[in-house]
């Protein structure tokens, strides 16, 4: 099992979500985050005084999948996340030791994405 953690532009998220859903990966989490990188800050002027903002808003997408699915997810993220400009973000893949479904207590890889029967219920 691997966790994929991607830092992305906001506008990249919706196409990624739609494609992952169509590929059978509906389970993911996002957070609104702020961070700095090579992208320049924004200078705000407030009544004559300046305030430069180095931390830029990004979206953090987290998703845990079986090892064999990692490349599919990463490819989808790269495909929709890339504009070619500085500030597109980063993707990290880390190992995950254990996983549990809270509702049933089941453990293991099979709990990672939606239950096979759950597709019809929304």
């Amino acid at each position, binding site marked *: 099992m691997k966790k994929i953690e991607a830092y992305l532009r906001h506008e990249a998220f919706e196409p990624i979500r739609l494609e992952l859903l169509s590929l059978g990966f509906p389970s993911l989490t996002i957070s609104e985050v702020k961070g700095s990188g090579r992208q320049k800050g*924004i*200078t*705000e002027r*407030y009544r004559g005084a300046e*305030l430069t*903002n*180095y*931390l830029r808003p990004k979206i953090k997408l987290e998703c845990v999948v079986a090892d064999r699915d990692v490349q599919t997810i990463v490819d989808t993220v790269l495909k929709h996340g890339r504009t070619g400009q500085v500030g597109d973000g980063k993707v990290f893949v880390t190992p995950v030791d254990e996983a549990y479904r809270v509702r049933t207590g089941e453990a293991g890889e099979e709990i990672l994405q939606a239950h096979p029967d759950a597709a019809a219920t929304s």
Partner: protein
Amino acid sequence: MKRTLMRAVAGTFAAALLVPAVAAAQDGPTIETVAGELNVTWVLVATVLVFFMQAGFALLEIGFSRGKNAGTGIAKILVNFAIASVVWWAFGFAFAFGGDGWLLGDSGFLFQYGRDVAGEGATGETASFFIFQFMFAAVSLAIVWGSTLERIKFVAYPIFAVVFAGFIYPLIAHWGFGGGLFAEIGDGVQDFAGSSVVHLTGATAALSACLFLGPRRGKYDADGTPRAIPGHSMPLFGLGVVILWLGWFGFNGGSTLGTGGNSFAEVVSVTNLGAAGGVIGAIVALGLTVKKMDVGMIGNGAIAGLVAITAPSGYVEFWAAPIIGLVGGIIVVYGVFAIDKYIDDPIGATSAHGLAGIWGTLACGIFTSPRLAESVGIGNEGLVYGGGLKQLGVQAAAVGLTFVTVFVLSSITFAAIKATVGLRVSPEEEDAGLDISDHGMYGYPEQFIPTAELYTAGDGKTEVVA
């Protein structure tokens, strides 16, 4: 008799106050001069109420914008109002009210005391008319911009404001209020406070702007299905609606241009009933369609009721007002749903001011009572009083003329703006929001700037004083 008594009392009271000031004059103030001053007083009170509608438009539009476009709404309202003020003084007022030729007025440019306006030297009373009518021009201009939220370049505002407040609105105002073209259709077009002249004019320009701008990014799916782009504050929106409702008492009530016969009290009552009908109409339509009491739509219903009752407010009896408002409220709900499929109008101005404005103007042809048609002195009674379709036809002609004229003139202006300085911001600026991209600052800084940077990225000299 009661009126005579009140005038006498008011006259005595005013005379007592004015005695020191006029002691040098040979004659004291007459009942007529005091009555005239009372008229001007009411017109100025109404002027103030209509000015406050700018706050209503600002809050309504900002509430319906996303938080990244909140500050720009304030800048827009102030800049447009300021430019329109000067333009109206320089030539807008003259085109609108400086004479009774069928097309345009031709006197009163650079308006001031003593200057010739329609063959008479301007007085303080003329000034009250000048400033009151300007507020209408400013309302009409404010209506244009609601539909252009979140994507229009700031530079479009001053350019279009000059053309609109200086020429387009004065042209229609001259036709409708200044003795121009509309006075010569039939026995005159009935538009008491401007369902067509003010609201349809603004909404038509808004429609033109929308067509030249195109929808906001993300408004439509790949297959063209409209998506909701929720505004950031229903409380601000709702406060805007209530302020507009308040301002409308001056908008319609002040259009009596005086206190004679106390008809302004009737007009204000009719206006309130119309607004009430609009809210009720909206909740009925919502109940029949989406089955959820959409907060924004209920507000739109109030506005539509007010827009619809604007033309008939001086012409209809109390009983007709809630009906006119109710139909306006129903129209706006279905209108917003229908227009949203094709045109991105973030606040629904084309429905609330356009469709309801058309309905309100036509409603005169149905509900105008013979008593009020006679006392205002324009047009005839409507359909329900046995007037047949005559007045309705006159009203329809005014609607058609207003729409076509404003649409053509606005489209020429917007096409010229688009071809020269550009009408729409870049996609990157639109995503970032107009607050930061146009104004270099956020309307809600704490929401966009990390707290860490706001409070600790200083020079370290700030001390806590305990």
